[in-house]
């Protein structure tokens, strides 16, 4: 029994280490992607000096942040001030841990599921940690002991919990179609019936908009609006702390993209791959790469939207969340129940 526990533990540890490495590298390179894509959209160049195509820019930025003076104002509430950035980062990482990024790999004499935690109620865990993401922002705003930060934190919390609802209602559609809470089953169902985006387009759009709102990205980034609330909830953070917030935002983006891909775009599924009859390691690798490409597309979409659409005003934002997305979501649930009853999805 102990040996098996050791094996399982080792497997989990390797997956976690791999995941953290990939995640943190992606977070760092998202800054590069953001700057290059925004430059492309704005008809200019973007970083191209540090290394080929500016690829070493994130390293330079990291070094810069490390050397920046970290000024901790004396009037902040220290314990919570220190805790807040972690509280934004951790839910994103935990949510990603239930997302399957590949099919089952048969290697080393065991079935390795390419998912860090294959729990029976994966969707509930996703919703649970999405709702935990509110605290980091609210507490950062509160602990800074600063009117602007407080307002930013308050507005952001209200925005986050409003769009959580819309997100949950959209997920109900997926849940009804799949009939199970496990994310592995969601992917398998999409393999059998076709990607959820085809059957559940309104739900997908709701989830997309809600994901943008949940990650505090434009057009929903009023809480950190650079021109409105000084810098919103991270006004009083400098140097390493500020970069933590920045990285946490990208981590949230990556998790949200992974969720969109898993719930609506078939996860790691590549349509027609089974027909090719490839040997198993190649098939598994192809599917993992396909997952990565899909997530990359949605990250690109995030950046694209940010530099295209203007910011929502706060009352427009709340209006959209409660009066538009929620009714559409409820109608969508009706539509999906019709589909499920007919057996089409």
């Amino acid at each position: 029994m102990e040996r098996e526990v050791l094996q399982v533990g080792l497997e989990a540890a390797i997956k976690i280490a791999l995941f953290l490495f990939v995640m943190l590298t992606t977070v760092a390179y998202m800054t590069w992607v953001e700057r290059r894509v925004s430059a492309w959209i704005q008809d200019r160049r973007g970083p191209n000096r540090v290394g080929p195509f500016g690829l070493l820019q994130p390293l330079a930025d990291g070094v810069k942040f490390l050397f920046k003076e970290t000024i901790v104002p004396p009037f902040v509430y220290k314990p919570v001030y220190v805790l807040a950035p972690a509280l934004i980062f951790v839910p994103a990482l935990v949510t990603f841990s239930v997302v399957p990024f590949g099919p089952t790999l048969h290697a080393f004499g065991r079935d390795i599921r390419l998912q860090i935690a294959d729990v029976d109620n994966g969707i509930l865990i996703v919703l649970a940690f999405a709702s935990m993401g509110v605290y980091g922002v609210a507490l950062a705003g509160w602990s800074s002991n600063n009117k602007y930060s407080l307002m930013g934190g308050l507005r952001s919390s209200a925005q986050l919990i409003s769009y959580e609802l819309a997100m949950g209602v959209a997920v109900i559609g997926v849940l009804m179609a799949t009939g199970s809470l496990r994310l592995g089953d969601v992917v398998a169902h999409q393999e059998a019936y076709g990607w959820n985006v085809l059957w559940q387009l309104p739900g997908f759009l709701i989830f997309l908009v809600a994901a943008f709102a949940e990650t505090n990205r434009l057009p929903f980034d009023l809480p950190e609006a650079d021109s409105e609330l000084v810098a919103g909830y991270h006004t009083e953070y400098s140097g390493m702390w500020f970069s933590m917030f920045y990285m946490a935002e990208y981590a949230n983006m990556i998790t949200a993209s992974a969720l969109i891909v898993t719930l609506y775009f078939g996860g790691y599924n590549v349509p027609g791959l089974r027909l090719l009859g490839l040997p198993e390691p190649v098939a598994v690798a192809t599917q993992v790469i396909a997952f990565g490409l899909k997530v990359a597309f949605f990250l690109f979409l995030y950046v694209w939207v940010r530099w295209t659409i203007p910011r929502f005003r706060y009352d427009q934002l709340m209006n959209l969340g409660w009066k538009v997305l929620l009714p559409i979501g409820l109608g969508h649930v009706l539509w999906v129940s019709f589909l499920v009853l007919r057996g089409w999805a």
Partner: protein
Amino acid sequence: MHLLTGFILALLVSALLRATIPERPLLAAILPAVAAAGLLAFFASELLSMEFWAGGVGFVAILSALLVVMHPNPMVSVLFLILHLFCIALFYLMLQAQALAALQVIVYAGAIMVLFVFVIMLLNLRAEEGLRLGGGVQRIGALSVGALFAGLMFWAIRNRRDHPFFAPDALVEGFGTARQLGWLLYGKYLFAFEAASILLLAAMVGAVVLAKRRLQ
């Protein structure tokens, strides 16, 4: 025995955190990691037993509940309550109530506590200056009720030894899953479910009306 080990270890970790967090956050991050590594090396067999974890989580639950009640700053009380709710969710996991554990985090720790955080931020509450505990009669009353309650609990749990209701460990397949909850909610307890939704509607309307600035 494992329970006690869990308790003691949680106590040590909490003491370490308390000692290091305010002044040296980096130390507070490294020390528990070192402690965990040490645990893994020396107490591997303990880590496998559920009772060890139950003891550890139990200690954290009690400690955080105490801090909720005793800390002068309301925001810090809220944070400890969130920790407490997480511990309760872990207990639910140990008791084969997986759906409830996730629901606990979604509803309690993720929504109700956000409400509390909101209100504290809106009203901009500060730490209270000094915890003025109640006077003579209140204290005597509290102590006697506490003693009575403790006696009652002791007797009730003692009584179980003669009439154990302990069923064997084998549970029906799918106990505690969301599917089972759903079957019951939409089947046997449908009326209660609908009544609860009306209750929530009433609470929503009431909260909006009460918190409005001025009734037009």
